[in-house]
């Protein structure tokens, strides 16, 4: 397991960091369980936990670069790509090809992280103040 913290910027007009992080996380889950096969009663909606920076309010997705994400044969990347406007089109095209080639299989989550995304280790996240609570006695 290789935990990675992915702070999400509020770069989409009308979306806070928290809203965008939630939307991206929801789309990562839909790689495995697309909306077309979900039930309206499904409780499960997200792939990874998220944490909120205590002072800035920014939200980070807590992923695992080594985790193999199942790719459903009916996966639809439209909404996920729309949430990544800063990612170069060439990179998006590559992601689509990669996912298409692995429908019904798995891909390491680390291969899905855009080059434009900040990636923090646990130590780096701690140094940047993502975990403020003191250790209790």
């Amino acid at each position, binding site marked *: 397991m290789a935990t990675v913290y992915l702070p999400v910027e509020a770069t989409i007009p009308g979306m806070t960091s928290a809203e965008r992080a939630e939307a991206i996380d929801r789309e990562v889950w839909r790689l495995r*369980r697309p909306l077309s096969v979900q039930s309206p009663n499904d409780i499960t909606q997200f792939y990874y936990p998220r944490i909120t920076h205590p002072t800035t309010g920014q939200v980070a997705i807590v992923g695992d670069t080594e985790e193999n994400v199942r790719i459903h044969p009916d996966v639809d990347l439209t909404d996920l790509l729309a949430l990544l406007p800063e990612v170069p089109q060439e990179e998006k095209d590559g992601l689509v090809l990669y996912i298409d080639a692995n429908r019904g299989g798995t891909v390491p989550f680390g291969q899905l992280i855009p080059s434009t995304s900040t990636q923090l280790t646990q130590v780096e996240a701690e140094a940047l103040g993502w*975990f403020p609570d003191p250790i209790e006695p």
Partner: protein
Amino acid sequence: MPDISELNGTAIDNVAEFDGVAVPAAVSAPAAAYSVRLLGSGVGISSYTGPAMRVRRDTAGGTGDDDEADIAFDSGVISLDSAISNASAGVTATTLGEFINVGTVGGTTYSNPDSLSGTASCFVDEWKDQSGNANDASQATFGSQPQIHSGTVNTDLITENGEPTLDFDGSNDFFRSIAVASATANTIATVLKADSTLGGLQKVFARPNSTAGQLRLSGAQYSFDDYELSPITTTRASVTTAAAQDLLFGYVTNTNKTVRLGKNGGTFDVGTTLTKDLQIIGTAETDAKLGSKRDGSAEYFNGNIQEFVLWTTDHSASRSAIESDINGFFSIF
């Protein structure tokens, strides 16, 4: 003999003694109540008719992967015979055993109506609140959901002391969305078992507004605490555990300005008496956690939980009755 509501003009709930025999205080309705068994008047619930929990099956990418269903109580407790309802599209299984294609358990062979390629492991994404307050504990992130079946063929649900349980992995499992009303007192009763007494700080129950006000495990010691402000000062009561199945009963009141915690009917440990208002007052919280620290980011409980009941009143007078009801089912001590 008909039920009576008063005795010589005194409401039965206010009668403390009759002919020299102590009358247990009535158990009022809890604010939230989660269990693998169907709860009743012993913990203050008049009638609950809904499902026990909503679950998700994991077929490792095969047919039926991640489908969900509500599961009912079967003779008062969840089991492989529990009926399922409200399931995802395409699910034709009618019992939990069929839903996960468990095979043969206890002489019963469960069919495989959904044509799964193997036995599915099973996770809880919503633990239904039996209190009537719709205070369901939920977990929408798939990797953080406690488990009730290992996915091993011909194997019963995960159990503790013969009864089903929810296994929290200590890595990232927890529930959220539990609302705690403002109150001058809290009482908790829970049945749980830690996997080890060697771990670091873990949280069984945590309130979102502070690092205090929680039920926690550190080493071999469970603690229940609350706090006052300016500065934050904690009062904490503790009991030890041998990583065995335990029944914990704790309460905190602003009247006494302290907390108490007891294990398996034993003597209460009493926390320091504070002087200011405890923060059980005016701190209505809508996202308390079961199984992690206050923000769900760490200090995950590693063990299993079979029951957790929360009252926003002082129920210390009913301790014996509540523990008797719980122990009558789980046979802990």
